[in-house]
């Protein structure tokens, strides 16, 4: 059985991971085929009666109507696309940039490392949200601009993770051996180092999907979302400005719950992956190992004798 199968088997044995996977599938379905089944098309003009505005839920509108008389459920379904696109695309680019920078800094060391790490230090020390607010409000609102600022601030985490892994791996014997046999830098990196780091990069990227989704919804809530697209953060922006005084919970709660739902699902998956893949979390000298196995299935415990109990 290869490592990938092993990880997958251990992964699906974790209840939290399964719950997360199920929750995420629901949202993906909603984003992909949801709009075909949505009861109304939010982009269509509707004739609104005064009584339709912020009307509470009824048989035709299961989640009531918003401040423009539109069906909240349909808005919610359409909004799933923006969140998922921003989440996945941002995480993908953060992963790409972070991996390249981390590999370069860790492998080549010296001046390359210094320059790259000072840049990540700089980006890590600047407060995220104020920087995003300033850039987007100066540059203008748009989906790709939002993705750009999220990536700008998020790749640093992957870069640091990859760098620290590469530094320890490149001193290992099989890498030394490959080098002594004349393997090129590119070959050593792609054949010997990258495969070792890839699982952790993947876990980090999964977690980054969730923080990207939250970042997008925060920007949208603060009024800097893409004005041409329906997103959950934007719905909350409207709801907070116009519906909170009337306590229209049917407009306020669903988009927020949707954001929590999707990011929680991703965090559950990412957390399970990280626990499986991070070797540092495996041993624990103070506790009864049988108990650990209960929450960490794949760990072969090295220290089975223990009198201390948790």
């Amino acid at each position, binding site marked *: 059985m290869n490592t990938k199968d092993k990880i997958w088997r251990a992964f699906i044995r974790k209840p939290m991971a399964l719950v997360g996977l199920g929750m995420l599938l629901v949202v993906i379905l909603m984003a992909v085929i949801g709009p075909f089944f949505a009861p109304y098309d939010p982009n269509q003009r509707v004739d609104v009666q005064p009584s339709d505005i912020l009307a509470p839920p009824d048989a035709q509108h299961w989640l009531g109507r918003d401040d423009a008389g539109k069906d909240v459920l349909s808005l919610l379904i359409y909004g799933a696309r923006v969140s998922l696109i921003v989440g996945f695309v941002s995480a993908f680019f953060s992963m790409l940039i972070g991996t390249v920078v981390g590999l370069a800094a860790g492998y080549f060391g010296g001046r390359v490392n210094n320059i790259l790490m000072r840049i990540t230090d700089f980006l890590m020390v*600047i407060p995220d949200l104020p920087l995003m607010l300033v850039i987007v409000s100066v540059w203008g609102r748009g989906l790709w601009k939002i993705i750009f600022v999220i990536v700008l601030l998020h790749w640093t985490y992957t870069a640091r993770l990859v760098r620290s892994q590469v530094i320890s791996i490149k001193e290992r014997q099989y890498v030394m051996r490959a080098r002594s046999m004349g393997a090129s830098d590119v070959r050593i990196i792609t054949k010997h180092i990258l495969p070792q780091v890839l699982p952790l990069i993947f876990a980090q990227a999964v977690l980054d999907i969730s923080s990207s989704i*939250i970042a997008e*919804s925060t920007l949208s809530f603060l009024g800097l979302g893409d004005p041409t697209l329906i997103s959950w953060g934007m719905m*909350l922006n409207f709801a907070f400005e116009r519906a909170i005084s009337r306590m229209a919970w049917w407009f306020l709660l669903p988009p927020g719950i949707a954001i929590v739902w999707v990011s929680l699902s991703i965090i559950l998956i990412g957390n399970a992956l990280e626990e499986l893949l991070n070797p540092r979390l495996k041993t624990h*000298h103070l506790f009864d190992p049988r108990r650990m196995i209960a929450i960490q299935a794949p760990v072969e415990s090295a220290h089975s004798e223990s009198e*201390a109990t948790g």
Partner: protein
Amino acid sequence: MQRRDYLLKKIFFAIVTLIAVVVFNFFLFRILPGDPVKLIIHSPRMTKEAQAKIRQNFGLDKPVWWNQEEFLTDGLVGGLDTQFTAYLVNLTKGDLGISFANRQDVSEILKERVWKTLILIGLGTVLAILIGVGLGMLAAWRRGSRLDTALLLIGLFTWAMPTFFFGIILLMLSGGIFPIGGMVSPGLKPEDGLKYWLDIGHHLVLPTVTLTILYMSEYMLIMRSSVVEVLSEDFILTAKAKGLNAFQIFRDHALKNAMLPMVTIIALTLGYTVGGAIQVETVFSWPGLGRLMFEAVQKRDYPVLQGVFLLLAVSVIIANLLADMLYAVLDPRVKPE
């Protein structure tokens, strides 16, 4: 590493970062699409002469980086007669420009607002650290127990929760028990003494609870994994072999080593806390820097936006430097002389 070298390195980095922020701040607002004068002048009927006057007043008639014309006649001093130099000179004088929205001095506005944010962030962070570190130790100590799982779930849940949405939920749930917006009830003045301060405390409850609960989990999760990680080190096994009991090992070996990364983490999360304050202040109309930033974004009030950004970034950089200094004192690996 010698403590002095370590500190010098950190101070040097902080200074470079500060310079970078100042330059970035200048640069960003110069690449604004369109003419900055058009942003100030809302009326199209303004004459050419008046526009030129404004341009001159704001120093916008000068070149951005380098004044070649003046350099040829006046030498280096003339060459530096630029927008960038003017920006730096104004900055050292504490002059951050004038708000587009209400024509007030930006630095005056900031001065009036900064302590309100400090109260909120300070109180929220201290509570979050105390409760979070405590719960994190508890979770690591009872790792695998039901309590640990429950705390972990709470942690993951708040991690998935956008700060502003949690604030909105609390706002809806509070149902008039606590004031939902502002800092003080209308009509109360500082001269009212105790009553005034109690009223502010009353208004502080919801925003502080929001910040505390959300940031507490962050510290809790980090503290938990930090302690768990330390417990997997070989020196814990050695301590056990020496015959120390679990509690002694935990107190003397695990906690000490787990607390160290916390100092760095607390400093690093300060940037997030600032972001949280922007959201919380927006939701609860708390009249601090965060709310100011939100309003500036709404009104496209660039001088204010620039000023708040600069102040927040500089404060976080300095706070990080202080944390690094604290780290140097606490970490035995950084040797004093």
